[in-house]
């Protein structure tokens, strides 16, 4: 199918659309190029390998990995329940879960503050347990999970919905109890969708700024992730801020390439539509 696409002589796209498409691409690409153009290459290496920069990058990678893991552990059940379960207010829950996608991160930070903060909803209970969330690395992970979870849930739920539950039904009639169906059928089938969802969640965590700043604070090695470090460096050393921004852009490019750059066939279990498909991802043949 891909081969056919490449040979197709007729695209059905009117010419003037290309002009607007180029403008659209420039809107995204030009600012990124502007960063590259602004980089002070002579001092680039020292700036991105300075102790605060490395500490921030390390913290960002660690917290993003942790929040991605948390997103997987919590997001897979949530996506399954939303896609397959049937319970009252399901639609409402789905909308609520997706809210962080459109919510300004600062609002997320404020919401988290009034949940896990000292004076927050759970703050008292957590204090009794000896847990202090605010100003800790845990707060960063929580903030990142808050904003990243919807990405994982959305991409997974999409895969689950379009894939349908026919394989699960067959597995059940073959005698597999639900836990076996989940482990041996559902999980392997959604793996491609889960992988791209996890990569997106990781990317979102890496870029998380507003909620972290509002909720977690900013302290080197503890809560000051790379975006916060960039924001701070801007105050005194714009060159360093630009250099670190480029690092973040590079990481983001790598992450997005990982999520979307793979052959079309293996993208997600839900990509193949139509009634008669025999397998959710047969075209690429690269189901892990």
């Amino acid at each position, binding site marked *: 199918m891909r081969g056919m696409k490449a040979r197709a002589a007729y695209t059905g796209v009117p010419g003037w659309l290309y002009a607007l498409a180029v403008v659209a691409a420039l809107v995204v690409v030009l600012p990124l190029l502007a960063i590259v153009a602004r980089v002070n290459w002579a001092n680039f290496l020292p700036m991105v390998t300075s102790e605060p920069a490395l500490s921030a990058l390390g913290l960002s990678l660690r917290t993003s990995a942790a929040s991605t893991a948390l997103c997987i552990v919590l997001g897979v059940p949530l996506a399954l329940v939303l896609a397959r379960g049937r319970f009252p207010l399901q639609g409402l829950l789905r909308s609520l879960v997706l809210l962080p996608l459109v919510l300004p991160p600062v609002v997320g930070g404020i919401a988290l503050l009034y949940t896990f903060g000292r004076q927050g909803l759970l703050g008292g209970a957590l204090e009794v347990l000896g847990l202090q969330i605010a100003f800790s690395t845990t707060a960063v992970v929580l903030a990142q999970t808050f904003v990243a979870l919807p990405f994982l849930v959305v991409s997974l739920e999409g895969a689950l919905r379009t894939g349908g539950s026919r394989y699960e*039904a067959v597995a*059940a*009639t073959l*005698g597999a109890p639900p836990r*076996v169906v989940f482990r041996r059928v559902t999980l392997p089938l959604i793996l491609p969708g889960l992988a791209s969802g996890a990569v997106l969640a990781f990317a979102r965590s890496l870029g998380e700024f507003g909620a972290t700043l509002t909720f977690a604070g900013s302290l080197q090695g503890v809560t000051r992730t790379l975006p916060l470090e960039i924001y701070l460096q801007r105050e005194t050393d714009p060159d360093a801020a630009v250099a670190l921004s480029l690092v973040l852009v590079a990481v983001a490019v790598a992450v997005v390439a990982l999520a979307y750059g793979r052959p079309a066939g293996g993208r997600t279990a839900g990509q193949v539509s139509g009634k*008669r498909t*025999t397998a959710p991802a047969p075209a690429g*043949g690269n189901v892990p």
Partner: protein
Amino acid sequence: MTFSFQAAVAGRGFDVALTVGPEETLAVMGPNGAGKSTLLASIAGLLKPDSGRAELDGRTLFHLDPKQHAWVPPHHRGTVLLAQEPLLFPHLTALENVAFGPRSGGTPKHLANSRAMHWLAEVEAADLADRRPAELSGGQAQRVAVARALAADPALLLLDEPLAALDIHSAPLLRRLLKRVLAGRQAIIVTHDVLDALMLADRVAVLEGGRIVEAGPTRTVLERPRSSFAAGLAGLNFVPGTMTGTGIRAGRGREISGHLEEPGDAGGNNRPGVAVFPPSAVSVFLTDAHGSPRNSFPVSITDLEPHGDLIRVRAGGLAADITPAASADLGLVPGMTVHFVVKAAAVSVYGT
């Protein structure tokens, strides 16, 4: 060792009761939306009816009424579903797919694999063991799916149009295969194809509008259909009405004389009955050709279509098969009014 089933789903207007004897294969036929899928899904445990009761080999599958609520989940039923699409797990090899059932039942891996190999050999697919579903043709995949269903050792095998998605070359092969493996097995096969019913089933049940309108041994149903759907399957004209003693009085004042199949009906008892006759027994005339013992109906032609070597003329809900030459002589076109004429001796009349 009997399977008995009775269930109602109010939302779908579904209310069906049936039984399948040990070592019996029942074909369920009916138009789209008749409730065939609902039937299989409630047997397999994928759909919960509003009320009803099903037992398989003395085990209760479900018993739902205001006082009782017994419900056995799909994986404890022993009712394996083989669908139109093979639905092989794409991430497993053919062998792993076939071994899935035994392994889910707790059979150790090596035992499950040898059992899977046995069933793959049984469906002549042993050489496909290591292939992934994406590397199988439609026919191969469906054979593996049959092996997978059988390896799960089903007490009752449910087949949902297993041949419908196959091309004309693969279907006969798989039909022969199914005939072999269904012998001596308790099974329900949903099919649109009268050939499947004839070859694979001992009995046929016709489902229409969520209800069984007709059931019986395959031969009887096809020779003496009591529903228009079964008549259609058998390729027969079907006119319902009331028994008159010499034939049937149908709607629109149409009287059809025929041969009474049951001697007791000679009295003309106004019982509901049907007149059934093959399209090949119908002649087409431009003018009314009276003369006993013939039936003649003025009809308006709705369609002309090729039917083997003949032309099938559809008019007034009936069909007539005539030669192309006769059709040309008469100058038949849709919309034209003609007379369908059939000898009374060619019409079977019986009560329903």
